[in-house]
């Protein structure tokens, strides 16, 4: 494998993701009794402990770097930071609670607002999707690319269960060959970056920590991630919310979707 521009960062992020994944998998198998407690439930503990594990690894390796995490109180100082780690220690909480194995650890690194590293780790399958600027995207050690499908009506699209059940996908479903529900935004983006599905769309707001790692994976796998109104995301903004519609996948599918969705 070529020399990576962010070799140390990749090693630390993968180590952090695995450590978090082990914690999450352990909590996932906790006795049912403790799942019924509203406070101190396994989901809360898994989220917080995984967050601590990731922050500890990153802080040890890169003490100067700023961190934005779903589970840590936002520090305004991060807006001045050149390097920002953007973390969701447990993306796909609903599925985690329901015992559906569709949740992931997501870690991204933004440099001057541009994503340069992404790691998405699935604790139960122990699959690690990772990539960094200029080096491509990998599933464990195998390089990946986005799908070669060129038409929306041939595309298998990943979407969120809740958006499907709320009817938010109804205006778009008929554009595609198939829409599959799947948990975790980060996992969906990673699967599209690995060519395991063709496309992803969302009609609900997302946060920077949901998408930063996956965004980099898509860029390096030959695809793109955009909000249709504003294009690619510049990260480390005061308002961490990204507004729908959003799409990810091969550029030609994104272009075709932008055109078709504009008329709906």
């Amino acid at each position: 494998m070529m020399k990576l521009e962010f070799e140390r960062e990749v090693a630390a992020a993968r180590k952090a993701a695995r450590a978090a994944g082990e914690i999450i998998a352990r909590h996932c198998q906790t006795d049912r009794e403790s799942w019924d407690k509203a406070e101190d439930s396994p989901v809360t503990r898994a989220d917080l402990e995984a967050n601590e594990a990731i922050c500890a690894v990153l802080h040890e390796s890169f003490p100067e770097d700023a961190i934005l995490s779903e589970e840590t109180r936002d520090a305004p100082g991060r807006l001045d930071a050149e390097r920002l780690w953007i973390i969701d220690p447990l993306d796909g909480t609903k599925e985690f609670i329901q015992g559906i194995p569709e949740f992931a650890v997501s870690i991204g690194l933004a440099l001057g607002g541009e994503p340069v590293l992404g790691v998405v780790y699935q604790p139960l399958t122990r699959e690690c999707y990772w990539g960094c600027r200029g080096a491509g995207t990998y599933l464990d050690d195998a390089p990946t690319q986005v799908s070669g499908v060129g038409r929306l009506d041939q595309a298998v699209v990943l979407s969120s269960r809740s958006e499907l059940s709320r009817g938010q996908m109804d205006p778009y479903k008929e554009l595609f060959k198939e829409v599959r529900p799947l948990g975790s935004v980060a996992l969906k983006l990673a699967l599209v970056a690995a060519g395991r599905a063709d496309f992803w769309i969302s009609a609900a707001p997302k946060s920077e920590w949901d998408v930063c790692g996956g965004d980099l994976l898509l860029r390096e796998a030959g695809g793109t991630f955009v909000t249709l109104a504003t294009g690619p995301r510049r990260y480390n903004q005061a308002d961490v919310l990204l507004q729908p519609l959003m799409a990810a996948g091969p550029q030609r599918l994104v272009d075709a979707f932008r055109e078709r969705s504009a008329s709906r």
Partner: protein
Amino acid sequence: MTHPMLRIQPVSDDLYEVSDLEIRAFSSLRIWVYDLEATGLDTTRERVTQIAGLPIEGGKILEEEAFVQLVHPGEGVEISKEVEELTGITLEKLKDAPPFPDAWRDCQAAARGSAFWIGQSVFEFDIPLLETELARHGLPTTLPATLDSVVLATALLGEPEGRWSTSALIQRFQVNIEGLRRHDALDDVKILARILLPMMQIIREDHDDRVFLPPDRPLSIKRHPPVKA
């Protein structure tokens, strides 16, 4: 739901096709092996009467973590003599059993932490039956990622003369089923787990520990023979 990354396409009354699946490091994963018994075979109207499952992890069957629960099918539901004889489950045995929602919740809890579920003929029977039960009780019809061992067997061993029934797989792998009773959900799960171990060995040794069904070369699966009226 089947495995979210698996495509299933009905072809005819006798066949369906599956494609587009990749599971890596298969033999290292925690997998929930499960089975249901029911009041009959019509998945649109029958009721679940027993749920069982156990995990396999790292190539080991974890019988000490097995789950089994009889399920009350609801007031006024009958079980035919044939089904009673087949499963050994009578209404009398079910009178104090919990209703489906409670049993299902407990099974999901026992299975927590598994990468996916697997069962025999589940694409044709267990999954549609579960979806019917969940809908009947007003519960979300979201099911865990699930594989069918008939599909897995066909992918690994090729197409058999008939289909990869439990009996055919027991014979193929010379599985010892002494002391286990077919059509008891827990014993069926133990039998399937014993069938899966040699299948996992094949996956590990001959397939780089990966199950891969390409998107463009679907695998044809023979459907379960129609049930006599």
